[in-house]
């Protein structure tokens, strides 16, 4: 896999990432469509995601939680706003309270994914959009925690190899 480009746009508060995989678009689509596969990459090994619900239809919702090494959990939800197998998906990703109810206090991101066939496999373009700097900050702060634990997990994996 190669990350072809990463384009942050601070004024529009968007990040666009383009990556290429040597697998067909159908296989890349499955990573989003199948909650069991999704669980294996959305969160790092040290902070895995569990998708309790995954209604992969336009207007459908996914409910998930992430479990940290201390057993701490954070709840999230997705609402799918566009699905066009195997080329396009768009959803809103936000935080939820312990009952899985969307939190109005917490940030919400719009994520759009375009999956295109190329001779070597698939090109996936992911664009995340944020409503405000504060929202992005909140998300990064949660993710940073994740990032540090992820790094720890990778070191463990290297030591175990």
């Amino acid at each position, binding site marked *: *896999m190669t990350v072809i480009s990463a384009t*942050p746009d*601070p004024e529009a508060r968007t990040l666009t990432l383009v*990556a290429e*995989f040597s697998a067909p678009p159908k296989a890349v689509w499955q990573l989003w469509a199948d909650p069991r596969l999704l669980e294996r990459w959305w969160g790092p090994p040290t902070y895995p995601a569990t998708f309790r619900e995954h209604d992969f239809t336009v207007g459908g919702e996914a409910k998930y939680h992430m479990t940290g090494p201390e057993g701490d959990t954070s709840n999230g939800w997705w609402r799918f706003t566009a699905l066009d197998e195997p080329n396009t998906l768009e959803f809103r990703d936000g935080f939820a309270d312990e009952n899985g109810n969307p939190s109005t206090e917490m940030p919400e991101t719009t994520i759009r994914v375009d999956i295109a066939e190329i001779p070597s496999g698939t090109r996936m373009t992911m664009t995340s959009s944020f409503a405000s700097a504060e929202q992005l900050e909140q998300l990064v702060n949660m993710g940073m925690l994740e*990032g540090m634990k992820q790094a720890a997990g990778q070191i463990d994996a290297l030591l175990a190899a």
Partner: protein
Amino acid sequence: MVVDQSDVDRIFAALADATRRDIVIRVLRTEASVSTLAKQYEMSFAAVQKHVAVLERAGLVTKQRRGREQIVSGDIDTIHRVRELLREYEEIWRGRLDRMNALLEEPS
């Protein structure tokens, strides 16, 4: 801190004009409405508004609507802060993309 070349160009272009430099200095000291600023210069309200828009695009000032007024304040930090945050957010996604790739590489 790494600054994107296009941002640098935009900032320099925004500051290439004497009126715009003056506006930036003023609002860095204390915020002002567009109409207050317009009174300071020998030009129309619309012309001042255009200058403010150029500064805003360069991330040098921010504009907020307050009632019927548009308040301009000096702000060099917002854009830089967002840039840093986006870089951190990118790292989260790079981790995800690596894991996606590992799954795709698995023999099925």
